[in-house]
């Protein structure tokens, strides 16, 4: 049986690069898994199948992503990403024929085995009860190790709930405790080991535990030896196995898995109850009670609205990341302006062009969004307008969600870039500049958004966008934002201006919105030129 440790192929890369690449690959795999789960869910007919298929498929792919992460990032994030059965296996002292079995198991929890084992799961889980699952477990998982695989899959499926629940399905009741159990399960073995064995405190990657100290040793090592070290079957690296503790951990795992299963079972009953609750519709009492119109404070419901608005923005990124004519014009002008300063080395020039264009693109699509945050089309704009009599509430909600969205995108991007170029020293000041610039852009955008009505260009359809005006907006907002951020950095007390400026912009924006909304709506509906 050939066993390969993929991390070895990655040894020439620096840790930050390895981290960044493995993170990107994992993100890609998770995203792909989610898409696959959704596709499977859509192809299935019933509600039960829909929910379970999406969860299990996405969780399996999350697990695959975690496996990939453990391959590609030696020494980093191992605790969270190591295949859980391997983690458990390491705590048993096994020799002789059992070692062959353990190697087989280690291979089984690897990708091909995982796929083979998990493939039937969605179809079994769809069948409304856990009976078939138990039968499946009995047939396939007679051996204790395979039961462990099933347990770990069940636990991993719980964390898989997080993604679908955030993206599509709301099931907070079981997601939170299930995720907590999962993290406890993963964190518990190394935490116990760290507490009882100070020599292995922290449980870094097995390769860093003295067995191997450099890549030369790694290259010369046979796959079997490598596997033995990874599984902690070799005592030269300092064994931590104690059968008593291992048994206790196994028992803990099983209990946690049972509790997680219980949560899953309860939620499934809830799903079935939804299906059977049809034809019981009654008149909502709050509709028939007098004075049930809400007269809550301004802030009431803002957090909930921001949460949904943020989801909306995250799920419809294609609507605003597409570069439109004015934005593209700004980038072209910028590149033309800088062109004389480029060198003659084609490769370097290409690289510089790519870097500049991608940075400018990131900046410009954010400016586009800042300068018109409601203008997708008339129907949606009308819907938003019709939602509240307080335009300021609408603006505040969109401001907060937009800030969170851009911070969510920009901060990790900036941080990872700084790590990749090995300039960690710029992370802190860069993040401050970014946050200040976003605050300022948000304030400017509140006014720009309601000054000149235009509809955002929809895909495949050209609509009226005033290019000159918008280009000027983007340039002014970008330059002013960066300049102001630098100014505040040099004069920290000036940061007090920001909230005042934002408040003024909200008030002014809401006044403009109230005044111009009919004209905006007319333009977006196409009634007014």
């Amino acid at each position, binding site marked *: 049986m050939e066993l390969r440790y993929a991390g070895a192929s990655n040894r020439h890369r620096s840790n930050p690069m390895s981290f960044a690449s493995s993170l990107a690959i994992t993100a890609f795999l998770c995203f792909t898994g989610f898409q696959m789960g959704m596709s499977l869910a859509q192809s299935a007919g019933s*509600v039960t199948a*829909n929910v379970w298929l999406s969860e299990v498929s996405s969780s399996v792919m999350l697990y695959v992503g975690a496996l990939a992460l453990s391959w590609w990032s030696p020494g980093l994030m191992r605790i969270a990403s190591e295949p859980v059965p391997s983690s458990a296996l390491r705590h048993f002292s096994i020799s002789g024929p059992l070692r062959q079995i353990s190697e087989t198991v280690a291979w089984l929890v690897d990708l091909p085995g995982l796929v083979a084992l998990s493939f039937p799961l969605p179809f079994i889980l769809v069948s409304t009860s856990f009976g078939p699952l138990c039968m499946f477990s009995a047939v396939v998982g007679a051996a204790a190790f395979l039961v462990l695989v099933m347990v770990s899959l069940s636990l991993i499926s719980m964390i898989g709930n997080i993604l679908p629940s955030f993206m599509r399905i709301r099931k907070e009741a079981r997601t939170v405790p299930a995720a907590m159990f999962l993290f406890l399960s993963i964190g518990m073995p190394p935490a116990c080991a760290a507490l009882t064995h100070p020599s292995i405190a922290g449980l870094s990657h097995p390769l860093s535990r003295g067995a191997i100290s450099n890549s030369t040793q790694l290259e010369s090592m046979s796959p079997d030896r490598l596997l033995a070290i990874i599984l902690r079957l070799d005592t030269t690296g300092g064994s931590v196995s104690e059968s008593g503790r291992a048994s206790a951990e196994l028992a803990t795992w099983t209990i946690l898995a049972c509790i997680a299963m219980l949560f899953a079972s309860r939620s499934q009953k809830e799903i079935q109850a939804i299906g059977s609750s049809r034809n019981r*519709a009654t008149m909502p009492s709050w509709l028939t009670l007098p004075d049930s119109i809400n007269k809550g404070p301004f802030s009431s419901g803002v957090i909930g609205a921001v949460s949904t608005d943020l989801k*909306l923005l995250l799920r419809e990124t294609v609507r605003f990341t597409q570069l439109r004519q004015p934005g593209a014009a700004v980038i072209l002008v910028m590149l033309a302006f800088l062109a004389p300063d480029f060198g003659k080395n084609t490769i370097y020039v290409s690289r510089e062009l790519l870097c500049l264009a991608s940075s400018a693109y990131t900046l410009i699509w954010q400016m586009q969004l800042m300068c018109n945050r409601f203008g997708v089309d008339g129907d949606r704009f009308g819907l938003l307008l019709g939602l*509240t009599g307080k335009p300021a509430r609408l603006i505040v909600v969109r401001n907060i969600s937009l800030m969170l969205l851009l911070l969510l995108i920009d901060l990790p991007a900036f941080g990872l870039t700084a790590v990749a170029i090995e300039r960690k020293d710029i992370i802190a000041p860069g993040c401050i500049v970014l946050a200040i610039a976003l605050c300022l852009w948000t304030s400017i955008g509140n006014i720009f958004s309601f000054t000149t009505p235009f509809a955002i260009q929809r895909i495949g359809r050209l609509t009226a966008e005033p290019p000159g005006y918008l280009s000027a907006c983007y340039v002014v907002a970008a330059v002013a934002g960066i300049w102001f951020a630098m100014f505040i950095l040099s004069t920290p007390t000036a940061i007090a201006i920001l909230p005042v400026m934002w408040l003024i912009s909200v008030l002014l924006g809401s006044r403009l919105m109230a005044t111009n909304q009919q004209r905006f709506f007319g333009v977006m509906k196409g009634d007014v030129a």
Partner: protein
Amino acid sequence: MTSAVTTSAVKVAKLTHQFGERLILDGIDLEIQRGEVYGLLGPNGAGKSTAIRAISGFLRPDSGSISLLGNDMVRYPARSRDTIGIVSEDVGLFEAVSANEFLCFVGHMHGLNGSEARNRTNSLLELLELEASSREPIAGYSLGMKRKVSLAAALIHAPHVLLLDEPFNGIDAPTIRRLCELLQQLASERRITVVFTSHVTDYVRRLCNRTGILHNGRLYDEQELMLEVGAPHGTEPGLELLLERLSGAAPKITTITSWYQQRS
């Protein structure tokens, strides 16, 4: 705000609007009392949706005045938004979120707190039989389901006035029956005013206390229009006949059937 003293929920005077050269609304006068269900009828392109848009404050008319619960909707269109519920003809929803999330969002935007918004969402989803798919993205819904979501969004803040533009398009018959009962109950018990447009006269008969028919930009009641178009007085069913005459459908049908006769 004078909503406490006025009895008319909607008051429109000399409302005129034109798109380009085309006169859509020509000096419309209308007064709808609180608790009244008013049906606005008319053939396609008669200006029903334009009238609803103007009353709801999304369209600034060329001239005339609109008062909704005592608020001037021409000058201050946003002020009454929390007291009206709107269903537009073009169902514009946030299709990337589920019905559940969308309705909670609408509730939050109207100022409902988390638990209240969730409770109302659940009861509306139950009422409109949308529970089974309430956690799926709206993009996958049929037109009828989208319209139900739109209706639920219009109801979630328990408005005083409902402005419904073709609300029953694509909705199945049992749900329409339930909605009609709901609207009638709301009108009679809570004195909610309902203004709705429709092509289907059956719904109008079932639901409305009063109807108006838009024709050539002007608003008529049934008897007036019968005289205007020369229909025999007292003919039953009057509304269908009137709409048929207004849309000119009958002669066209005769023409098309005559083509087949010629061919055979």
